[in-house]
């Protein structure tokens, strides 16, 4: 199934009947208002990391399940830490120790966890739509956060990226952003493109070989480049993507060396972008494939700030979703 024709079921599952955000499944379909509220709330959570007690009591008594059917160190550990810093209890379930290998269905797994009175699920799954499936099943009985589903979406990654851009490069409304690499198969890139367009980014470029950055991506409102030098001209923010080795097995790329020669971000090529352009990467990095070590460790890279920001973003998302209960705006 081609990602650009991908559609999920009825209505917008992400909002409850009162129009409040109940699940975070994809950036697509969110309003600017909620995006800004998540980013602004994350600003408040950033400072908590500098206190002697790095916790708030916000989710005390709630239980969040990290349900990971795919390996992840950064995303899983920042979600875990985010929930813990909000005083929630956290249950980590990884595929290798779950009953999925014994043939239990995803819904059965979720129902069993619901029988343990949990309050929310953070799910990563190799199949697009897995988080939607769970949200459709649970409705409003628990919150669901998509932590990456197949090639579809990775909304918290995109949120932490736009948060990083907003904090370190200034207003998104006047920044030119380029995404380099395997845009076609990247859930990170798709979510980034949606977040940037909702927040009014005036120019989003995608750069890569024709096999990974096809012309029809312009349907997403982006400018397509197959030449790195042309694509980087005047760019304020560069988002490198992780190149998946599987792409070579499917013959979309001749070799990693070939990719590095044409699209690898080296110090010389970085100079084609605007002076002091920011360099982002969602991790884990393939040094010497999509990015040179001199750039990854250089002054323009903000890759470790992205990780700190990811923690604050995930705290904000869990807080906002967990708060979408009860009766509205009665704030005395």
């Amino acid at each position, binding site marked *: 199934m081609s990602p650009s024709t991908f559609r999920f079921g009825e209505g917008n599952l992400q909002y409850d009947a009162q129009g*409040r955000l109940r699940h975070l499944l994809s950036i697509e379909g969110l309003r600017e208002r909620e995006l800004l509220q998540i980013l602004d*709330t994350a600003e408040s959570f950033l400072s908590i990391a500098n206190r002697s*007690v790095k916790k708030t009591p916000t989710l005390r008594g709630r239980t969040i399940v990290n349900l990971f059917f795919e390996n992840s160190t950064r995303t899983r550990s920042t979600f875990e830490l985010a929930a813990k810093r*909000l005083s929630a209890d956290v249950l980590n379930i990884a595929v290798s120790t779950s009953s999925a290998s014994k043939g239990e269905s995803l819904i059965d797994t979720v129902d069993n966890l619901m029988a343990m009175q949990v309050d929310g699920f953070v799910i990563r799954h190799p199949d697009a739509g897995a988080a939607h499936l769970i949200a459709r099943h649970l409705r409003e009985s628990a919150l669901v956060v998509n932590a990456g589903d197949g090639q579809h979406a990775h909304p918290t990654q995109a949120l932490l990226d736009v948060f990083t851009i907003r904090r370190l490069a200034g207003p998104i409304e006047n920044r030119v952003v380029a995404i380099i690499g395997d845009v076609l198969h990247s859930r990170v890139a798709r979510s980034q493109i949606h977040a940037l367009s909702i927040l009014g980014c005036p120019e989003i470029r995608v750069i890569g070989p024709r096999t990974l950055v096809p012309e029809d991506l312009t349907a997403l409102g982006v400018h397509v480049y197959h030449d790195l030098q042309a694509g980087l001209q005047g760019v304020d923010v560069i988002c490198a993507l992780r190149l998946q080795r599987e792409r070579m097995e499917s013959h979309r790329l001749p070799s990693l060396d070939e990719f590095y020669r044409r699209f690898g971000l080296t110090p010389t090529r970085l100079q084609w972008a605007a002076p002091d352009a920011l360099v982002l990467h969602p991790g884990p990095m393939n040094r010497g494939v999509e990015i040179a070590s001199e750039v990854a460790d250089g002054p323009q890279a903000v890759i470790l700030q992205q990780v700190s920001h990811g923690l604050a973003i995930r705290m904000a998302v869990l807080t906002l979703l967990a*708060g979408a209960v009860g009766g509205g705006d009665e*704030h005395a």
Partner: protein
Amino acid sequence: MSADWDVTALLGGMARDLRPHVDPEQAGMIGIFTGGVWLARALHGALGLQQPLGQVDISFYRDDFSQIGLHPEVRASAIPFDVDGRDIILVDDVLYTGRTIRAAMNEIFDYGRPARIILAVLVDRGGHELPIAADIAALRLNATAGEHIKLRGPDPLRLELEVRGPQP
């Protein structure tokens, strides 16, 4: 309905009452968003405090989070001095149930262990639900549940009384 209160005069009274309790070199002042921060700015200057002003947004500490969720607009808390062992003047506009003060104290203790906290409010309107009392209050009222007292500002600061009838 509105009442004729002179906020500037009330602030002058707060500063006068606070002065004997405060060592300007050492004491730290913290305002609670939003009204408490407006008042704290004025008091901080009037008392000549040396430590920079702190501010807290108690949204993440509210005891009714699971009933009403997150306030739509959360500001960042910032306490730019070491709380440990310090005298803290906590400033808010209206003391009502005491739940905001409890949340603010919980948050302050996540920064450190103060030697003492003094609570200074513009209005203590009565109706406390917790054993929390103001050390300094410019105005002490016995308002009914239907009367809402709100500080508007920041410039000028105005104290408004609104009667909305009995609570549902």
